[in-house]
């Protein structure tokens, strides 16, 4: 019944990643760009967890005696995504701090107004 669950979720992650990248590149508003970046991160995280999915697998938690009761999904991608989400928050907060400082300087959120390093 649920043999295509992995593929369906991976397709969702794929679409989210592409949409996020498109938003990051096409928007002029800096806050919108950061929103696109955070959607991109979410999509990539979903793809990574979907790679570790095993058909009919359960969460990698053993029972009290320490025996494996069922088929498990891969714990390694989950562990990586766990750290990746926390780092994503740190990076997003850092970018927003930059945006706040930039806005104080030029009173504009449009990325085209910041040409100081353009040549």
């Amino acid at each position, binding site marked *: 019944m649920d043999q295509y669950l992995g593929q369906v979720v991976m397709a969702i992650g794929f679409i989210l990643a592409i949409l996020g990248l498109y938003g990051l590149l096409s928007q002029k508003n800096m806050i919108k760009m950061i929103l696109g970046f955070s959607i991109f991160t979410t999509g990539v995280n979903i793809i990574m967890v979907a790679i570790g999915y095993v058909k009919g697998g359960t969460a990698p938690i*053993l029972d009290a005696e320490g025996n494996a009761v069922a088929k498990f999904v891969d714990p390694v991608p989950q562990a990586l995504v766990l750290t990746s989400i926390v780092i994503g928050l740190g990076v997003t907060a850092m970018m927003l701090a930059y945006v706040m400082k930039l806005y104080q300087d030029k009173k504009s959120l449009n990325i085209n107004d910041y040409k100081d390093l353009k040549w």
Partner: protein
Amino acid sequence: MDKKFMVALLVAAMAVILFPLFQSFEGGTQLSELGQYYTQNGVSDTGATNLVASVVVTYRGLDTLGEVTILFLAASIISFFLSVSKDDRIENRTVMSVTEILSTASQTLVPIIVLVGAYILVNGHLTPGGGFQGGAIIASGTLLMFLANPNHKLNHTIIHVIESTSGIAFVAIGVIGVLMMDGGFLSNKLFDLGTPGEVISAGAMPLINIFLGLKVGTELSNVLGIFVESQNEK
């Protein structure tokens, strides 16, 4: 026109890169070799029943150290950029009045949320959870506190003391593992592994989880606090 074309090209290139991954993915029925090793030997190696936590804390402990370092760096940069000097600060800025429901609910819920975070943190080696999850939940408790009372001031001294102490303790446990045991960095054979499934088991893992959770929780709360305090700039 030119820029739009470039954007379309880049997005298409990304799609081309990602598509083979999607196409070749069959939702495997078999674990990878590494995953199989962790599933079969996880309990006898670490004594923890939550395999994700044993990968995060023990098998890939060095990666976790790097992650904590990145988070610390991000928090330092944020506090460097958004620090408000004393002259520019508005004391007790006027904020939109908070409804009775939110203020009462926050008084009741914040202790419960922090308690749930602590529970998830301490039981990380048995059930889903661990340092990162517990820390994130504790930070969302802080967020509710800030929403109910935007002029609330975090005690930065206590936060910095907790943060640096737990960071140093985390590294110290790792180094002790290198110096005294043969297990390598962050070996959890520091203490007896105990019976899997009990709260005091899995060697040093509960201790590492607690330090990790305290560090992540205080760090994220600190970031939130800096963002709230930066609103007070004139």
